[in-house]
């Protein structure tokens, strides 16, 4: 229940913002726009779900954007140039990205290195590897791709819930359940609260660290596949800077960057808020795209300042008691 208030605030911001948008542009409040919003942000929602686990555990993963880029290039080349069936290519890239994340997690744990710099190296490595594969955009023409991008559930009001949006929603729900209901999820929170305490309680810290980064990279791989569905191409420069967008979504969603608190649902709401700002700017037409960045920055500041206040309030009596005892 501890994580609830920040999530509630995020939800209120989302609803209020959406209402404001709808007042100005009544067309925004349609299933068509909402469906597009889900489709356009599907890959972001998937990566941000993985990022939530990493950040709650007290870490950070800067490599996800590069993993997405690598995945799109790898999948495109495998299908188009090497003649691999799409399904085999998907399994191969997921195995590869999972192993990549596991290696980063192992490095962080075994050599006791800061996650920031290890995943920074991973970011360079994955981006460099995708440049090596191909620097050009490789179009994907496999029939699976047109089938998947044509598939959509009709929503009342003319909206379309596309396949990539459905994949994203499934992963968000799965991620939320994994975090809330399983031992794995509880261990993630324990790790973020205090590594030492978690270790003393019997959590296998090393194995958990490896698993968490593996999960994040695996989800980045899935996001890459979804991204290739979305663009029907593989490009080594795709998804540059997505790691920042996903970290921003996680923070706006009320997850504490110091770890130990947060939720996947909040992250999903954070993704929607970013998508909503983008949609509003598109509808307005006179505002330029840079306002998205400024608005996201302002929101980031507001949420972090709020959390800081809440944490300070929560800690104050504890600190006093501790002082009295000693």
């Amino acid at each position, binding site marked *: 229940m501890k994580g609830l208030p920040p999530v509630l605030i995020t939800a209120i911001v989302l609803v209020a913002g959406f209402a404001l948008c709808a007042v100005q542009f009544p067309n925004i409040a349609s299933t068509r726009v909402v469906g597009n919003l889900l489709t356009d942000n599907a890959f972001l929602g998937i990566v941000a779900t993985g990022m939530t686990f990493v950040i709650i555990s007290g870490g950070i993963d800067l490599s996800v954007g590069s993993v997405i880029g690598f995945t799109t290039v790898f999948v495109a080349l495998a299908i188009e140039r090497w003649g691999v069936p799409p399904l085999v290519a998907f399994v191969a890239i997921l195995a590869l990205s999972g192993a990549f994340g596991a290696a980063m997690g192992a490095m962080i744990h075994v050599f006791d290195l800061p996650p920031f710099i290890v995943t920074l190296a991973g970011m360079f490595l994955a981006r460099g590897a995708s440049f090596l594969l191909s620097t050009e955009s490789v179009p994907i023409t496999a029939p699976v791709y047109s089938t998947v991008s044509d598939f959509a559930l009709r929503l009342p009001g003319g909206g379309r819930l596309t396949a990539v949006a459905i994949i994203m929603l499934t992963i968000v729900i799965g991620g939320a359940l994994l975090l809330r209901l399983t031992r794995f999820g509880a261990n993630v929170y324990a790790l973020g609260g205090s590594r030492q305490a978690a270790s003393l309680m019997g959590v296998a810290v090393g194995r958990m660290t490896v698993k968490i980064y593996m999960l994040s990279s695996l989800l980045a791989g899935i996001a890459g596949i979804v991204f290739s569905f979305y663009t029907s191409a593989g490009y080594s420069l795709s998804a540059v800077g997505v790691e920042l967008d996903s970290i921003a979504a996680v923070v706006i969603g009320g997850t504490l960057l110091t770890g130990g608190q947060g939720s996947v649902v909040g992250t999903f709401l954070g993704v929607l808020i970013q998508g909503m700002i983008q949609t509003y700017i598109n509808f307005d037409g006179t505002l330029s795209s840079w306002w998205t*960045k*400024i608005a996201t920055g302002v929101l980031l*500041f507001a949420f972090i300042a709020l959390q800081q206040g809440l944490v300070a309030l929560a800690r104050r009596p504890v600190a006093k008691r501790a002082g009295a005892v000693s």
Partner: protein
Amino acid sequence: MTALLPRRGLAQILALIVILAVDRVVSPQFFDLRLQDGRLFGSLIDVLNRGTPVALLSLGMVLVIATRGIDLSVGAIMAISGAIAASLADSHSLAVVLAAALGAGLICGLWNGFLVAVLGMQPIVATLILMVAGRGIAQLITEGRIVTFSSPDLVWLGNGAILGVPVPVAIALGMLILTGAVVRGSALGLLIEATGGNARASELAGVGTRAMILAVYVWCGVCAALAGVIAAADIMGADANNAGLWLELDAILAVVIGGTSLFGGRFSLILAVLGALIIQTMNTGILLSGYPPEFNLLVKAVVVIAVLLLQSPKLSGVAGVVARLRRAKA
């Protein structure tokens, strides 16, 4: 000089020599220098010139990291100051342009420092805000266009020469000496290291940790703004989208290669700048070798991993044992 160049710089100097030797093999003309129109030319000068922005960034970054912080916003600050300099260059004197651009860096640094020191935010998050919003602000200043200018004063700052040395290199050298004189010529450096080592203990011992933290972020902002002005002067224009893009990562990398721990504490200015030069020497070497520049990122990744493993607390324990054994034998 001993204050600036500690004994532990040996590994970095060796690394630079090795990379220079590799560059010499790849490109036989690597060490050739020639004087033309009162300015030195050659691959070595090119390395120094191209390495200037990251060297300037690392100069501020190393102080921030020494306090256990990190500044992700330096690339965005470069974009902002470059945008300001480019839009004022043709209508104002160089002094006004520099004052405005560096002033903007100062304000950005104050903002970061305020968030970290006064509000107590985590440095990664606090500077992430400006990293995201800053590029938007820079685009707001340039109105999304690439602003070009032709003011000879500002162009000189990026392409001129003093006694044969390119102006950017001279500026970076001047900043290194200035920063070194301020932090090592006084107790300031020691206080910064104390803050990073243990902020609470330092606070109790009477160190003004808040002031220290605020000061290093301000200095980092000013260094970043200077780098932004030089980068803009170099290309005679400001591109808010790409100026300084991802350079924050290079700067952090330079500091880490320079042996300063991300966990704060001891730092070395000169080794951080050396780290920036190592990165640039690698980049230039790859360019000269004719390999596609795409190899850059892969090589960089391998270097980061190697440096990390060398610095790992666990492995350094092993290295310490080895060193002790050797000393015992000798």
